[in-house]
């Protein structure tokens, strides 16, 4: 078959035209078609090859030629193709040198079963080491915290206040709006169910109990887990991949003291406040629904609240906030420290920090609910 790039007469093969990247596929197809190279590479052709008619040559074309004639012949190109421009000879020699060693490295392959087993094992080991690291990191943060508690000179007040603004103050609108809406939804649910018993007045108790004890703090914590834990991970992760953490350590500065404690302290201060905001606006959402659709006036709402709901419930709810705050901040920071160089790793650890902190918040909340119930609080 006549081709734009190859002409074959018995044992003489003339290469012609543009041997460039743009034509790579066509040339390769033509080569396979004329049975000059096999689909399995590595066996140079025995035919006499003439390169004189080649008008353009780039690295892709040169690679094909070297595959066609073999490395040895390509290196000695000056001896048999002296008419070829010197630049193109140099290119062929260079490519031949590069292709001298076998270039195909197969990734190690295993059977599917052992791959599955290996991945299960990896997951388990990963999970275990994650918990191990988390505990160790909590210990480290606690130790540094107590160590610095008595040394006010080392308190990073500016950084702490900045983080309180970012993770606390700036989160007030979203927390308030969200809890307001959930408060309204809970009131609607209560009204629907309790109406059958003629006990719609207890909707107030339902909203108050659920928000003071659980929802106020839980919703605030889950929001901060999504909003702040991810921010902490991304901030510290970017510093890690930029070697800023190493620079701190090399200067004898403690990254826990400079980076982690301000964030932990800021969370410890922000989350209880946000939880309080959440409780209030949840109650407000409930009050709106009860007053608009159940004909319970605001005065009645407040009176029932005062009569039925003791302050214990508020304290029980609020007591969980610092624990959640600590867990969220510590997980966010730890995942940041685990980031390695790549962009992918920043993404993975940010996801992991959000998932882990939400998981931990809900887990602790469940355990706490059991505990408080058994205690009769």
């Amino acid at each position, binding site marked *: 078959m006549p081709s734009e790039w190859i002409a074959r007469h018995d044992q003489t093969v003339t290469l012609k035209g543009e041997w460039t990247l743009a034509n790579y596929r066509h040339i390769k197809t033509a080569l396979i078609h004329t049975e000059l190279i096999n689909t399995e590479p590595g066996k140079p052709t025995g035919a006499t090859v003439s390169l004189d008619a080649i008008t353009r*040559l780039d690295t892709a074309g040169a690679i094909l030629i070297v595959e066609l004639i073999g490395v040895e012949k390509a290196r000695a190109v000056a001896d048999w193709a002296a008419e070829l421009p010197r630049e193109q000879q140099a290119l062929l020699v260079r490519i031949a040198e590069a292709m001298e060693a076998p270039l195909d490295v197969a990734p190690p392959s295993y059977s599917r079963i052992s791959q599955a087993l290996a991945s299960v094992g990896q997951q388990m080991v990963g999970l275990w080491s994650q918990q191990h690291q988390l505990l160790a990191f909590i210990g480290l943060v606690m130790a540094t915290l107590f160590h610095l508690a008595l040394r006010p000179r080392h308190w990073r007040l500016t950084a702490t206040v900045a983080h309180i603004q970012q993770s606390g103050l700036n989160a007030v609108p979203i927390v308030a709006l969200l809890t307001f809406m959930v408060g309204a939804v809970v009131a609607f649910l209560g009204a629907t169910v309790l109406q059958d018993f003629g006990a719609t007045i207890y909707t107030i108790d339902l909203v108050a109990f659920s928000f003071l004890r659980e929802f106020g703090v839980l919703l605030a914590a889950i929001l901060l887990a999504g909003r702040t834990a991810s921010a902490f991970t991304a901030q510290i992760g970017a510093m890690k991949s930029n070697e800023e953490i190493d620079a701190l350590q090399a200067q004898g500065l403690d990254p826990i003291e400079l980076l982690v404690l301000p964030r932990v302290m800021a969370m410890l201060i922000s989350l209880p406040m946000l939880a309080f905001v959440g409780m209030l606006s949840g109650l407000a959402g409930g009050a709106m629904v009860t007053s608009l659709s159940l004909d319970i006036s605001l005065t009645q709402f407040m009176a029932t609240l005062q009569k039925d709901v003791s302050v214990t419930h508020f304290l029980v709810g609020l007591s969980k906030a610092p624990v959640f705050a600590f867990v969220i901040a510590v997980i966010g920071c730890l995942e940041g420290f685990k980031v390695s160089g790549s*962009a992918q*790793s920043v993404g993975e650890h940010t996801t992991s920090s959000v998932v882990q902190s939400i998981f931990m918040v809900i887990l602790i909340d469940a355990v706490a609910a059991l505990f408080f119930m058994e205690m009769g609080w």
Partner: protein
Amino acid sequence: MIDSAKSTPQPDQPVIQVKGLVNRFGAHVVHENLDLTLKRGEILGVVGGSGTGKSVLLRSIVGLKRPNGGAVEVLGNTLNELDDKQRSQIERRFGVLFQRGALFSSLNLQENIALPLIEHARLPREDAEHLARVKLALVGLPPQAALQFPESLSGGMVKRAALARALALDPEILFLDEPTAGLDPIGAAAFDQLLVTLRNALGFSVFLVTHDLDTLYAACDRVAVLSQKRVLVVDTIDKVADTDDEWVQDYFHGPRGRAAQRAHAAFSTNAYTQE
């Protein structure tokens, strides 16, 4: 051979023309009325003190920064006036090596280099990765490196891999931002040699930002000195070195400059006697 115009460099035909370029960041003026020409097939070294806007110049030529004034003509087109598709057509005729490599961290090396081959040259993955492996070998990386990810590489290996990626599409213009910074002297010398070989063979033009005096002597046809917000002088290195300017004199005739000059002179006489 009608098409040989592209493989053999036609001297003195500009591929890049920068006219009256103005770049500023806020009140800080980096370039004021800067003119520069890159001829077809030449290796142009761009030097200048820190903060004279070498990298900014490179970024405005490749279109990553919109200049505040003036015009940049690349291969006969003004990049900022083209629509996205035409611009992409022009841009695939570039190869850019960024200062810190800028390899894609989520891809291994052979995928990094195969990506433009698959996306632009529309090669099947298998062929693209095969070409990628040859290019990695061409820049002097061992075969095992093909499956490694950028984060596990040393700085010098990243530079080489980044060069291989810049060369992936056999570009007409190669932009190199401090390619030999962070390479050991042997690697840097091999790099200079590789650059000249490839330029001779492929006929591309090179815009080379560097601080490396050895590279200037070994690889560059002309040298442009950026100073006082413009191109102070652009000529062959010997003439540039004779320019009557304090910075140029310090640069080329300081201890390192003299060492590079001596090394180059010794190398040239050696080569001469061998022939």
